[in-house]
């Protein structure tokens, strides 16, 4: 069985098309792997019956010669995507028991293309976190272990369940969302590939909102090409999302193998932070060397407002969240804690339903939007945001893509960095800029640290130029030849 779960998405597609394997056996192998590695807590809900039913239909279509682009491919869905008839929790108690009567556009696109649904993956509550420890359904365990250390590590967050599931070979790919790094940081922590596409590339319709101007769905998988294949199905204009972009969706996978010769790669000097771990610096240098070898030219660039990005992000995102989460009030759906008056109903329900990190961000967001503070915080943060976008616009005059580390460290142990929220927020330092500017960013596994834990490099591209991002990521992937595997995985 290990062979089936070790396949990449592209390999599995080819094997299905060639009828070397059936969708049913592929689905069953993954369903069993999920069961066996339940201790990872990667899934909040599994849908084995649905998976096998989907797979059976896929086998019938393949037999009739009517295979679709993702026919029979077993996927895991971050439990932030509403799935019709399947409980959706956002890893929060406040949604307890909520079964959406509708399907998010992104997941509907995946089912349209023949994908098989394995279940809903764990995440930080409302996607707020970088460690997947804020979930009401318990933390996710990273399938990787630090050498000589048996402590459980975090898989990163907020898409920690999706990352762990992909890394442990519990699925061939997964959906995820990224508001400040929630795809790229867990990808880096688990040795997987994750891309946050351009804002507007994927519809947000039916995804539980965290921060609307930053949230963007994207895929996670074990190869760059697999991500490219998934993104093509997920993406596309949606008239139900006013911020979705009416632009053509190219064949991203075709870009992955293309030569990067002649591409101009920017290396932003402001990302060379004081005290940055030497391992991260050398990984970055290695990435530069690989791309140089592949024929790219390397250019030092300046993104002068980078140091304001993280504080601006931690104002804009909570501000939007404080408003987006107002609807969880116990009146129409989800948890209700009965009380004698409306205000008490709100207090009791929201007090019991939201975890500490979500409450903290609601309070921060409410504060920065309050009369007398709006100009000093929210308005200033929006100005910073505009300046960061301008930094990138200027950079695109001289480079085609930007190379940075994905995270300032490898995965840390559960419980570490928990004492001070700001330490945790620093995880996003390299990733938030792409969200603030709405740009595509990918994290590719590029090596291991001294403890044997994976590290990722990030490639940022121009708006709606995911193809260049995929080209560069493909070149790094080929050069890195990353073949390390986590200790906890299907078939191990």
């Amino acid at each position, binding site marked *: 069985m290990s062979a089936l779960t070790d396949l990449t998405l592209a390999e599995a597609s080819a094997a299905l098309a060639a009828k070397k394997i059936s969708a049913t056996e592929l689905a069953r192998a993954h369903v069993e792997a999920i069961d066996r590695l339940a201790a990872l807590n990667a899934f909040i809900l599994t849908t084995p019956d649905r998976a096998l039913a989907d797979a059976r239909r896929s086998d019938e279509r393949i037999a009739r010669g009517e295979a679709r682009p993702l026919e029979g491919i077993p996927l895991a869905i971050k439990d932030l*995507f*509403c799935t019709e008839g399947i409980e*959706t929790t*956002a890893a929060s108690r406040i*949604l307890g028991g*909520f079964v*959406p*009567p*509708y399907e*998010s556009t992104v997941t509907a696109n995946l089912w349209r293309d023949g994908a098989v649904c394995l279940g809903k993956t764990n995440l930080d509550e409302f996607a707020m976190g970088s460690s997947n420890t804020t979930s009401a359904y318990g933390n996710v365990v990273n399938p990787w272990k630090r050498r000589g250390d048996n402590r459980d590590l975090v898989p990163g967050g907020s898409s920690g369940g999706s990352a762990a599931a992909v890394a442990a070979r519990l699925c061939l790919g997964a959906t995820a969302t990224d508001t400040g790094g929630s795809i790229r940081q867990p990808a880096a922590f688990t040795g997987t590939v994750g891309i946050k596409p351009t804002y507007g590339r994927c519809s*947000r*319709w*039916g*995804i*539980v*909102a965290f*921060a*609307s*101007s930053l949230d963007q769905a994207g895929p996670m998988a074990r190869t760059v090409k697999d991500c490219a294949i998934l993104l093509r199905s997920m993406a596309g204009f949606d*008239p*139900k*999302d*006013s*911020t979705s972009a009416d632009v053509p969706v190219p064949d991203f996978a075709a870009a992955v193998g293309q030569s990067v010769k002649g591409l101009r790669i920017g290396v932003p000097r402001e990302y060379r932070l004081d005290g940055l771990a030497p391992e991260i610096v050398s990984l970055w240098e290695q990435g530069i060397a690989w791309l140089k070898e592949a024929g790219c030219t390397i250019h030092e660039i300046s993104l002068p407002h980078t140091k304001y990005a993280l504080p601006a992000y931690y104002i804009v995102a909570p*501000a*939007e969240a*404080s*408003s987006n989460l*107002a*609807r969880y*009030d116990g*009146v*129409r*759906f989800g948890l209700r804690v009965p009380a004698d008056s*409306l*205000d008490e109903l*709100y207090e009791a329900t929201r007090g019991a339903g939201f975890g500490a990190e979500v409450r903290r961000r609601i309070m921060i967001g*409410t504060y920065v*939007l*309050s*009369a007398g503070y*709006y100009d000093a915080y*929210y308005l200033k943060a929006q100005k910073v945001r505009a300046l960061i976008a301008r930094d990138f616009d200027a950079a695109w005059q001289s480079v085609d893509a930007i190379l940075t580390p994905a995270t300032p460290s490898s995965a840390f142990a559960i419980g570490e960095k928990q004492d001070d929220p700001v330490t945790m927020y620093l995880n996003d330092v390299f990733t938030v800029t792409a969200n603030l500017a709405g740009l595509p960013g990918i994290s590719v596994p590029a090596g291991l640290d001294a403890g044997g834990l994976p590290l990722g490099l990030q490639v940022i591209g121009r708006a709606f130029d995911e193809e260049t991002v995929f080209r560069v990521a493909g070149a790094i992937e080929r050069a890195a030849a990353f073949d390390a595997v986590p200790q906890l995985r299907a078939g191990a």
Partner: protein
Amino acid sequence: MSYVIDGATGPWEVVVGLEVHAQVISKAKLFSGAATDFGAEPNTQVSFVDAAFPGMLPVINRECVAQAVRTGLGLNAAINLESRFDRKNYFYADLPAGYQISQYQHPIVGHGTITIDLPDGTSKPIGITRLHLEQDAGKSLHDQHPTKSFIDLNRAGVALMEIVSEPDMRSPEEAGAYLTKLRQILRYLGTCDGNMEEGSLRADVNVSVRRPGEGYRTRCEVKNVNSIRFVMQAVEAEARRQIAVWEEGGVVEQETRLFDSARGATRPMRSKEHAHDYRYFPDPDLLPLVLDPDWVESLKANLPELPDAKAARFMRDYGLPAYDARVLVAERATADFYEAVARGRDGKLAANWVMGDLFAALNRTGRTIETSPVPAAALGRLIDLIADRTINGRIAKEVFEAMVETGEDPLAIVEAKGLRQVTDTGAIDAAVAEVLARHADKVAEYRAGKDKLFGFFVGQVMKAMAGKGNPALVNEVLRKQLG
């Protein structure tokens, strides 16, 4: 003749501004496809967007935008080609998202003016500050259960236009005339049905008082007044209350009040426990609303004729006095009815018939102009019968009453009842001779100089002829025979 309230310590001037919430006429809500019909069963016109389900997103309804632009054009206002939607955050059970989507900083319509018509026949321009689009909230029902409130979300998300005036009004009459005119314009444009009983049009009335010549003093806002008469009463009651406060040496506090129509007084809104900070910020789910200038132009080109222009044209084309024109254009249906009657006929005569006999008949029968028992074409044919002397004016009134009762065509009634006017001078000569012979004494008095008796003779002749005599001929023959 400015309006002044004489207080114990001297005269006071009243300053009034209105914020009117007008429900947009559209099939669907501002940001969802749910229907907007009034009076549907609770919670039957609610989409997942309206109920703020997780992951649901607003998408602007183009028709609501067009309605707001039409209204702005009708108010002679600047159309902002770029506007934005903000979130106004507050918790309430009938506000599902916990915020209302509204245009706080960048409204779709800017400065405009409307001209109000005052009872003394004068007009006055009133400034419009802005018009913006926003969502309505749902409805909380507190009387369905002893301890629980029920929520009806049918209205949640319905498009409203908030139309804010400048503080340009100086009397209850001006406030009433403003709301009357605004309602008229909205109804002409077809952008709001103006139905105040159903709540499609609601006014918040801002009132302050001052000594003549002074700057503005503190104002109070009287919320949700739902008739024009109540707006006028509320202005006066609130002004008198404030004058009393000032004159007793107190200070008027800025606050929100309600008008109690039964008591004819305003009172503070209860529950001051929520000092709202609405935390407005741009709605990140919506892009700025950018209008194509050509599209705005095409809306402008297709605007209906508005009441002021129509009244001016009626005066010019039909020779109507200002008063008649104003009365006839008050409702678009009345104006259309009048025009159907007047076109190609004597405009003043048509106006007299519509404003006189027709309005009286509508009143009496409890009908409206839309359901008039006498259609415009039939009334026109009746006027034609007068013009071509088939009947005289007095008989016409009799025919009209028969038309109201039976709905029959005027000519058919004339023929059936034998009401054709007599223009045969022989018959008139005979009738006159007979009357003069019967009233020889009165003839003598007339000839002795009692001219007023002429009317008496006319009446007697007409009576003898069962009203069918041609009045001009009767007069002529009488004059001749009385010599």
